[in-house]
């Protein structure tokens, strides 16, 4: 059993370490320049946002429209802790996530007790309230935003946090607690009659998703020097939602692929801003027509298990 587990996970470990090494080395050699690296950081942040929103929208079936709001809570918490209190970066990351999680609890508890679309309405309002709040709060710079001079966010941090997000959410989904969340998506009434406390699990998934949105916010704040209320508006929430829908509601690997694809598309077409929006919309329409469930649907990418035992006539490493 243990052996089998290791064999199943080894390919993922190799892939994870491999991608890390390739990017680190090419960046050190100067093949990837700063412009490339900031885009890779953007991809990482998008993956964290997409995967964490997928836990709420795709796996638990609760429609949240305010993921950028939780990102904002993390970003501002991070900016304040770094600039005003001089916190070390790891502590800032943790606090940003926790702050977003607490806000998630406050929003989630009253709305998730109910069945239906109340969460969508509440999170929509929450995002707007937050934006107005930050605009009028001079302590964090008001509408002009807050400057973050420490650029702590680098490729290594983003990569580590992205991998952590994926592993933790995957672990959750593979456990009985994650199954309870999926059961709620499938049929909330049946789930409650299986002895599942549906409110508890909806709130738990919401808090977990909010936590990682907060972490993404902290990374964002320390990557772009400045956090402004305008960066976390409704459109940003929609952008994250598009990653989830495009990748497949209920597929972690789908969200990862979609985050990469969407970031690349917008980077490639940056020189032609008008064309970019047209192509972007066109790409979405095409995907929705031909793959209405998203790129991956509810499936995950499977890597072939590596066999560790040497057998006659069988090479190590062949699937």
């Amino acid at each position, binding site marked *: 059993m243990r052996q089998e587990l290791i064999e199943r996970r080894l390919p993922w470990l190799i892939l994870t370490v491999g991608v890390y090494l390739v990017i680190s080395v090419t960046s050190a050699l100067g093949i990837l320049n700063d412009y490339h690296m900031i885009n890779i950081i953007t991809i990482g942040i998008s993956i964290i946002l997409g995967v964490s929103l997928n836990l709420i929208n795709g796996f638990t079936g609760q429609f949240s429209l305010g993921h950028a709001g939780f990102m904002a809570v993390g970003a501002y918490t991070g900016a304040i802790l770094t600039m005003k209190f001089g916190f070390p970066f790891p502590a800032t990351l943790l606090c940003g996530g926790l702050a977003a999680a607490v806000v998630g609890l406050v929003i989630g508890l009253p709305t998730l007790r109910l069945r239906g679309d109340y969460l969508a309405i509440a999170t929509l309002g929450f995002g707007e309230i937050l934006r107005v709040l930050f605009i009028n709060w001079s302590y964090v710079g008001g509408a002009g935003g807050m400057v973050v001079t420490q650029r702590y966010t680098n490729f290594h941090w983003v990569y580590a946090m992205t991998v952590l997000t994926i592993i933790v959410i995957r672990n959750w989904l593979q456990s*009985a607690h994650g199954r309870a969340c999926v059961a709620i998506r499938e049929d909330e009434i*049946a789930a409650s009659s299986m*002895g599942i406390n549906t409110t508890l699990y909806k709130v738990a998934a919401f808090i977990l998703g909010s936590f990682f949105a907060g972490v993404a916010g902290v990374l964002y704040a320390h990557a772009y020097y400045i956090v402004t209320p305008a960066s976390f508006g409704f459109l940003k929430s929609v952008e994250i939602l598009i990653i989830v829908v495009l990748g497949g509601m209920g597929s972690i690997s789908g969200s990862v692929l979609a985050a990469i694809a969407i970031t690349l598309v917008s980077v490639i077409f940056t020189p032609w801003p008008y064309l970019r929006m047209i192509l972007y919309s066109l790409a979405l329409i095409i995907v929705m027509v031909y793959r209405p469930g998203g790129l991956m649907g509810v499936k995950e990418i499977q890597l072939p298990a590596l066999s560790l035992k040497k057998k006659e006539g069988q090479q190590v490493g062949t699937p």
Partner: protein
Amino acid sequence: MALLSTESLSMTFGGLRAVSNLSLQLEMNDLQGLIGPNGAGKTTVFNMLSGMIKPTTGKVIFDGEDITNLPAHQITQRGMARTFQNIRLFGSLTVLENVKIAFHRHVTYSFMQALLQLNIAHHEENITRSAMDLLDVLGLADRAHHQANNLSYGEQRLVEIARAMATQPKLLLLDEPAAGMNPHETEQLMNLIGKIRRDFDLSVLLIEHDMNLVMGICERITVLDYGMTIAEGSPEQVRANPRVIEAYLGEEVV
């Protein structure tokens, strides 16, 4: 002491009295039937018993405890499980996953352990094994990895029963388990219900339209019409009751 009893249980929807003054008694190990014409309020009774809706008045006592105002999941945790007339499986999941979810009551590891995948492997193995055992009992083992939506109607009803059994109930509420089954499947189901009741030592309350099924296996039958109890007793007594014949059975069963 009765396992389940209700005291003047009533439910009104607006001006409609769906159930009025129902008094049910169910002893340990009983197999009781609840029958009545369409719209008699049978499913409403189940919804009240299992906590899906709160009764307008009256009480539900289960295993010596007043459960009238408990939420559905707590009632399940106390040992009452149900199936649904309009099948409510977790459709896009496999049959095995459906049943594993229902073992929720017996999950002992914490959220933190789940997030870090800390010492949960043997718990998960136990759940999977128990779920497979249960599917074996219901003859669904070869369907374990099929998507629940793709099963036949009859099989889906069996998965519903498997799922309810997985919560390890003392009382099983079956809402029209034979609906959509052919006579052969219905007969198998009758045997199965008898078997699980013996093997798992539980009580069954059954809503059914199929007269053969109800008369064949139930020891006691309660007949509802327009929300009121019009007869109660053994199948023979119920069959002979003129009010029942008038309200429901007509010439079908003589």
